[in-house]
Structure formats: C-alpha cells, structure tokens
C-alpha cells in the first residue's frame, strides 16, 4: 500500500497537493494536462524531490529522508533509461548491485530476466545497437529483476509507435503481476490509461486526486478531465 | 605485481639517489652551468673525491644572482657548506647576510688586481666584452662611446637578473660616472633586446639576431678550442674592460668546517684550476703549471682592468640601476 499524506509541493507559482492511498498491487495511470505536475508527483514518490509538506509511506514505512536508491521503488523514464557505455547485461545487472560485482547466480538471474522480456542473447550488446522497443524491454527487465514493491513509469513509451506501445503496456502488466508491484504510470494518453487497466489519478488545477476506476472515469469524465480531453 | 614495480620506479625517480655510506658529505651550492656534464663540475668532483675521502655534492641553483637569493632564503638553516659562484658585484650583499665565515687562506693569485678579502676566495675571472662575428662585422667599434654612436644592434643581459648584465652596468658606471644616464640614453637605440641571462643573449647572437652581444673576452676561445672556429672575436674598448671575479666562500653554519677549508684550498690547485679554462671558459685564478690552452693565446687583453672595490660595488649598483631603468624603461 502506497500512501501520500498531505503532500504539498511549491515552486514559484506552481503548486501541487496530493493526499490519497493506492492499494497494493494496483495499476494506476497518472493522467492530466502537461505542466499539471504528473512527473512532479512521481519525483516525490521516487525521492528526487522533497515535498514542502507531507510524507510518503509504503506499506507503513515512512520514506521521508530515504535516498532514491534506498526506496522500495523502481522507475522507468521517458528516455535515457540505459547507460550507453555499458552493455545490456551490465545495465540490467545494475539493478542487482550498483557495484556490478555479480556472483554467478546473480549473472544467471540477469540472463533469465532478459530472456523473460524476449531479449535472450542480447546481454553483450550496447544500447546503441538496440531498437527503441528493445531498449524499453531492457529497462523492464531491470525492473523485473529489482522486484521493488512500487513501479514508477514516467511516460515510458511516448516515443514508440501505437502497436509497440500496446505490446509494452502488456509487458508492464505482466511484470507487475509477477512482482506484485504497485504501478504508477504517467501518461497524457487516455488510451494508455485504459490499456493499463485499473485506476487513474487525475492531476489538474494543482491537485492530484485520489485514484478512481479508469473505465468509470473515462465514461463520465469530470469537468477538468473534459477540458483536457476536449469537448468531444 | 605491476604496481609495486611502478611505485619503485617512481620513488627512484622522485627521491633521487639514496646514499648509504658513512663518508662525510660536503655540499657545495653553485650555479647551474657549473654542474652540467660539459661544465667544470664532474671533473672537479672526481678530482676532489680522489683525495678527500668524502662525498662532494654539487648543488645547482640558477645562476649567480639566484644563488644569492637561495642563500638568503635558507638563511642560517642551510645545510650547504660552501657557496661557489658569487662574483665581485654581489660580494657586498653576500657579506651583509652575515652567513659567511672567514676562510683564513693565504693565496698566491694570478689576478690583474690585488685581492685580500677575508670571506671570499676567487676561483676564476674574466673581462666583460662585446663579441662579434668577424665575417659579418668589419667596422668594429673601439670604445663604449663609439658603440653608442654607431648604428650597430647589440644584445644585452638584464642587470637585475644576470651577472654579465650587472657587469655592464658597473662598467658603464665606472667609465662615465655622473653622465652614465646620458650614455644609456645614447645607447638605447643600439639595444636590440635585453635578455634575462647570458645564455639567451648568446644564443640569439649565434642565430645571427644581432651584430654584437655582451659576453666575455674569453668567449672566442670556446669557438676556437671546441669548434675550431676563429670567426668570433671580442672588441677591445679603449676605456678599459670591467672585470668579473667569481668567488667561493664558506658558510658559517657548516657542519664540515675542516672539509670546507680543504675544498677551498683544493680550489686553488691544478686539479681545479686546470679544468676551468676549457669548461667555464674563464681565466683561472691561479695559473696551472701547464699554462693556458692554445685558444686563449690570441684573446683581447685590455690595457685597463676596471673594477669597483666590492665594498663600493653595492652602493654604486643601486644608483646605477636606477639610472639604467630611467633611461630604458621609457
């Protein structure tokens, strides 16, 4: 269970508040107009940004003061998820140990996770030799391997074509199911939110609202969402 | 395993030779060119160590002027025993430091002047002179006056940073006295450049940059002896030539006073003096038994040897330097 208690972030004219709970294992899309604070919300959970007030709890543990790497959280960014100077296996291996001093057993796990995302035998390649979809798979293989209770995705597949995007969202669902992770995924596309299944947090007008069932939300959008979606 | 090897190599490089022997060590602080492989240093070190039962360490420190700064910087804490390479113009300043002890040696010297300084002993000497290339210059000036009146280009050394430069300053001062400022102004259009030290000046001259260079009457001997080249000559000036006497002295703080005395006495014997003409290219302070090498025979020998007594040199230097700066800094 991920709880955001009385979160307030202020940066100049920008203000974001959040106060809600996400059930363990839920898959939640974070939807809203650009500049509303979707990524800011993820940054607070990931530990990149300390909120001006409030705290984040994960399964009852207060995350305040924990470094990003110490949090029970994995994150996939829009791009630059892989270090271009390291091999695919090293990039995934960082998820096991940042020192990359892997035991045989751990190396086998890396290989297994690559196999799981359909990249068996890709371990020795460099990111430059991968397609966009393959790079996303490597990032997900690392998430799989880390098996942290919370999985954050910040518009991860925005650069991919529609078919590939659907495929990746399916993989995300599978990875989340296998690790039992709670998913928070930022997107500006209601279609992605629908495909992810589960719930949606609407971020608009300086406030991240509590998650509601995505289907119900899209069927009967509140005024803020209507405005974002266009009168339609 | 590679790391220790590299580390050992580095330590060996940086720490220099480590001497693990019980022989007493005599440290002689001198100028750089004295200790180069073609300088007097190596032969003199070998000759002295044959008889002294000691380890002679020659330590270089810039040129004669820098030598004095080094002594003043180190003060009484210096672990040098002897300083070799100051000259008559710097002696008063050196004396003022109070760091030197009397040598107590009575010596028969072959100098054109009388010498009775109780702190410093000469080891060689020479005359400053303007050197030229006989194949390029036919109308050679016969005096400082003629030089200033000519349209020749000369290279000088800076009196603040080099002993030849200071030598010329004193030369002009001793010849012109109160009118030396006017002389420098008259000379200023003949000065191609003023260099930091003798080596730059002489190098530029050899590259053909100027008609004449401030050096020594003995400089042509190098070209004759070492290169069999008789095209370089020193111009004889009718006002006389200023002398440089290079000296050595014992530091009062030495922990090897007897060994230092032994070295100073050795300095005036053939083992030291015989090496001087063809390595330092100066006249030896005591003529060796075999006499001077051939190349020295045809050198210019001035009729008048000019030199301020060391005790007057310092005050003359300061006044002369101000006039020099005033004439040339504009």
């Amino acid at each position, binding site marked *: 269970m991920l709880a955001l208690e009385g979160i307030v972030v202020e940066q100049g004219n920008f203000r974001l508040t959040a106060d809600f709970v996400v059930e363990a294992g839920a898959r939640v899309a974070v939807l809203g107009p650009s500049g509303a604070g979707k990524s800011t919300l993820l940054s607070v959970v990931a530990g990149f940004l300390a909120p001006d007030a409030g705290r984040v709890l994960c399964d009852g543990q207060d995350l305040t003061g924990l470094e990003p790497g110490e949090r029970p959280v994995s994150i996939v960014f829009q791009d630059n998820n892989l270090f271009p100077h390291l091999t695919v296996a090293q990039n995934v291996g960082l998820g096991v140990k940042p020192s990359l001093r892997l035991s045989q057993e751990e190396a086998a796990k890396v290989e297994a996770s690559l196999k799981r995302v359909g990249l068996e035998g890709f371990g020795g390649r460099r990111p430059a030799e991968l397609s966009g979809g393959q790079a996303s798979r490597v990032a997900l293989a690392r998430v799989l391997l880390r098996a942290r209770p919370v999985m954050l995705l910040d518009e991860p597949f925005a650069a991919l074509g529609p078919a590939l995007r659907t495929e990746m969202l399916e993989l995300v669902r599978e990875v989340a199911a296998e690790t039992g992770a709670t998913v928070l995924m930022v997107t500006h596309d209601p279609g992605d939110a629908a495909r992810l299944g589960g719930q949606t947090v609407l971020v608009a007008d300086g406030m991240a609202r509590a998650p509601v069932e995505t289907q119900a939300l899209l069927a009967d959008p509140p005024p803020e969402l209507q405005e974002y979606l266009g009168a339609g | 395993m590679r790391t220790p090897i590299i580390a050992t190599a*580095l330590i060996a490089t940086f720490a220099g030779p480590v001497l693990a022997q019980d022989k007493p060590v005599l440290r002689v602080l001198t100028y750089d*060119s004295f200790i180069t492989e073609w300088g007097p240093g190596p032969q003199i070190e070998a000759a002295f160590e044959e008889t002294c039962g000691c380890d002679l360490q020659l330590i270089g420190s810039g040129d004669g002027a820098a030598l004095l700064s080094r002594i003043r910087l180190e003060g009484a804490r210096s672990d040098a025993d002897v300083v070799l390479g100051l000259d008559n113009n710097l002696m008063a300043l050196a004396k003022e430091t109070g760091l030197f002890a009397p040598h107590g040696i009575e010596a028969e010297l072959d100098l054109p002047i009388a010498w009775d300084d109780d702190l410093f002993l000469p080891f060689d000497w020479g005359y400053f002179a303007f050197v030229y290339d006989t194949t390029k210059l036919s109308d050679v000036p016969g005096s400082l006056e003629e030089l200033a009146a000519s349209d020749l280009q000369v290279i000088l050394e800076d009196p603040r940073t080099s002993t030849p430069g200071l030598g010329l300053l004193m030369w002009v001062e001793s010849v012109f006295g109160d009118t030396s400022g006017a002389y420098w102004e008259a000379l200023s259009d003949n000065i191609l*450049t003023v260099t930091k030290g003798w080596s730059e000046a002489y190098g530029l001259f050899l590259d053909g940059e100027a008609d004449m260079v401030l050096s020594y009457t003995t400089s042509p001997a190098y070209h004759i002896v070492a290169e069999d080249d008789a095209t370089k000559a020193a111009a004889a000036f009718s006002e006389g030539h200023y002398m440089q006497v290079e000296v050595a002295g014992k530091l009062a703080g030495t922990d090897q006073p007897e060994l230092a005395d032994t070295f100073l006495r050795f300095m005036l014997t053939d083992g030291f003096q015989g090496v001087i003409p063809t390595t330092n290219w100066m006249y030896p302070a005591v003529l060796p038994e075999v006499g001077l090498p051939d190349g020295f025979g045809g050198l210019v020998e001035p009729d008048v040897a000019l030199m301020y007594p060391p005790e007057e040199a310092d005050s003359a230097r300061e006044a002369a330097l101000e006039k020099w700066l005033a004439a040339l800094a504009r």
Partner: protein
Amino acid sequence: MRVIGGLIQALAVALVLALTLGTLAAVAWRAEEAPRLGPAEWAAIRFTLIQAALSAVLSVALAVPVARALARRSFPGRSVLVTLLGAPFILPTIVAVLGLLAVFGRNGLLSVLLVLLGLEPVQIYGLHGVVLAHVFFNLPLATRLILQGWLAIPAERFRLAASLGMGPGEVTRVLEWPMLRSVVPGCLLVIFLICTTSFAVALALGGGPRGTTVELAIYQAFRFEFDLGKAALLSLIQFGICAVAALAAWRVALPGGFGGGLDRVVERWGIGSFWLRAQDAAVVVLAAAFLLVPLGLIVARGVPGIGSLGAPVFAATGRSLAVALLSALLTLVLGLALAELAQRRRGRYAAWVEALAALSIAVSPLVIGTGLFILIFRLTDPVALALPITAVVNALMSLPFAYRAMAPSLAEIETVYGRLGDSLGMRGWARLRYLVLPRLARPMGFAAGLAAALSMGDLGVIALFADPDRVTLPMQLYALMSGYRMEEAAAAALLLLLCSLGLFWVFDRGGRLRAGA
C-alpha cells in the same frame, strides 16, 4: 565511499587554497621590509595591461574569420588543421619563442625575404613582439572556442535562413552576430587572463625594461633584489588585475569544453561565390602558415642534432615525463573533485568553487614556488622534493583549463543520467566507475593531455629547487644553451616539442577512444 569522496573534495579545496593564498601569505610573512613600488613597477603594471588587452583583442579579431572559414568550408586536411590548432597552446614557451624567432627574428625567414625585396628586416623585440607571440599562442585557442560557437548554432536555423532566401550578410546579422556576442566576451577574458600572467614570452621578447610584465617584475624582485615584500605586493596586484577583469566580465560565461567535436562542417547555402571562397581560402592559408611555419622550422633545425643528444638529455626527458604523468593524474583528481563539489552544491556555493578552480590562472608560479620553499624548508629538504612539488604546482597551473573542460560535461552527465543513477542506488565508487568516468572519458582525456603537455614544457618552479640529479628537459635545454651547445639545444627543443605534443595526443586520443567505445 561517500565519506572518502567528501574527504578528497575537502582536501582538493584545502590544497588549492594552501598553494595559492597560503604560499602568498608565506612569502609576505618572510618579507623583511614594507614594499615600495617605484616607476619601474608602475611601468610593468601599465605594460601588462596594454599587452594583455592588445593580445586578447587581436587574437579574437583574427580568430573570427578563421573560425568562420573553418566552420563553413570542408577541404582536405581540415581535420588535421583543426587538430594542429591545439598545438601552440600546449607548446613549451621556450620552444615556441625559438620557432617565432626563426621566422620573425632579424635573421629569420621573413626578414631574409624582406631584405631580398630590398626592405628593412622586421624587429620583433618590444611590445609588438610580445603581442605577436601571445597571438601565436592564443589565436588557435580563440579559433577553437569560436568555431565551437559556430557549430553550436543548430543546422536547422541555417536551413531556415536559406529557405527564407537570406544572403551571407543577413545570415551574419541574424544568426552569427548573436552567437559571436555571446562567445567573444568570454574568449577575450580567458586570453586576457592568460596574457596577464605572461612571463617567459615577455622575458624573451619584451626587449628589456620597456617590456616588463608584472610576473617578470615578481621574478626580478625574487631573483635579484630578494625583496619578498615587493614580490608579494606585486603578486597581489596581479591577483587584483585578474579579479577586476573577471568582475568586469562577471556576467560573461567563461567558455567551457575546450574539447573536441569540431570535425563537423556547418552546412551552408549561398556562400559559393568566388570572392567568398577566395577570402576563406586566403584566411585559412595565412593562419595555417602563421602557426605551422614556426613549428616546421623547429623540426628542421632540431633534426640534425638528434643523434648527438647524450644520456643526460634522455634522463631529463624521463624525469619530465614522470613529472608530467603525475601532474596529469593530480590535475584530473583536483578537477574532478572540484567539479563534483560544484555539482553537488549548486547556487552561490558553486560559484565559489568555480572561482577557486580558476584561481591559479591569476597566481604567480614563482610566488607558489618560493612560498612552498619557505614552508617546506622548515620541515625537510625542498631539493629532495623538487620533482613532486613541480608536479603539484604544474597540476595547479593546469587546473583552470581542466576544470572548464570537465565541469560542463559532468553537469550534463548528471542532468541526463543523474536520476537513473540515483534510482539504482549508484553512489561513490560504483557511480564513478560505471557512470562518471566512462561518460567523462573525452574531456578527461583532453584535460589530462593538456596538463601533461603543459607540465612537460614548464621551466618555472623547478628552477627554484632542482639539483643535477633532478634536472628536467626544459632545464636541460636551457643548460645546453648556456653551454654553447646550440645544435644539441635545437635537438632538445625538438624532443621537447615531440614529448609535449605526443603526451597530449596520447591522452586526448585515449579519451576519445574510450568515449567512442
């Protein structure tokens, strides 16, 4: 590991402060009487300002057409020429001056030509000689910095300008002028600062008391007058000149990333006219001749004597190489530590770190050397430590350039990959080993090459300490000149040139290869 990183950063700050301000304090403390500045010192201050300003303005003014020609023309040998543009900056001063004299001296190539034409030979000594040498050293630097500005203009803008039918003049006004306005001030400042502390050039070509810089006056105060107070005061004045220049240009961003990436040519339209092509060709040929002929003459004069070089020259070369390598390593550690520090603490604090990294551009190596001598003399024999001390001081003198090469890249690495590294818990050694060092390989290779080359050619501080067992190659070269060994000196100059350029090439190349992997 984090503790160790912090410790190294603290040590780096302490070391830089101790070597710059600490040594100055030590010199002032040993001063025997209150300093007094005479007319000669004031003349030196005036001369310093004039020559530095002239050198900066001329270098930049000449660099603009050269950079423009290089930015918009591709021709065979262009990349070699761009590489060679890096050479003069890392050239040992003493070698470069020999090369310049071979061209511009009374007996040089140019004078010989002029005499053949029935004209007067050129006279290189004095203000114009000093400025000429400074332009020789800094024109290539300015060209590289401005070329970088040109290549930073997005190609789309030139395409847009072409589609709007803009001619060369309009492109200059709309695209190039604004770029120059942002790049040129920083460029002027850097060259002004470099020339302010000029020592060896003024020494060789100043032509006497008329052409004395402050640094040269400091040297004189030390060497002959033994006036430590005056040396300290002059050093402070030099500090002040640099500080005022830096403050006057406070808003100016110092150019960063001296590194590479200059192989690209800006794709341009509407510059195909014969006149423009001839103009660019002439500019490139003249600049190349100005820079390469002196280098060529050093090689030509040095080759005959190479065979006659003795063992002491090679021993000195070995020592210089060891010092250069140690100095390069130290430069990297110092530069990286300060860049990390500035990165971690942004805002005002970072500005102080930046200033600290740039501090040694304003200090006198002679003051550092003498200050160290005074401090170390109380503890142990400074002569025994001559080589390590030289390596440390040389590292400090290279630090401003190394820092400028590394800090912007480090900031970029943190922007692009910092969060990924954080989220994976990469800290301390793991972050350095798997994120920072591989991504920073290129600027680090460049910085190490620069530091090694500058150290290789430095004559300065070692001269205060060395004894015959610790003579470096520049000292040996100097000694050869003192010993009437002109042919060997020319050969040693060539050896020194090869070592300096070779060290730079090896490190820079190594960095590029690592970065490319």
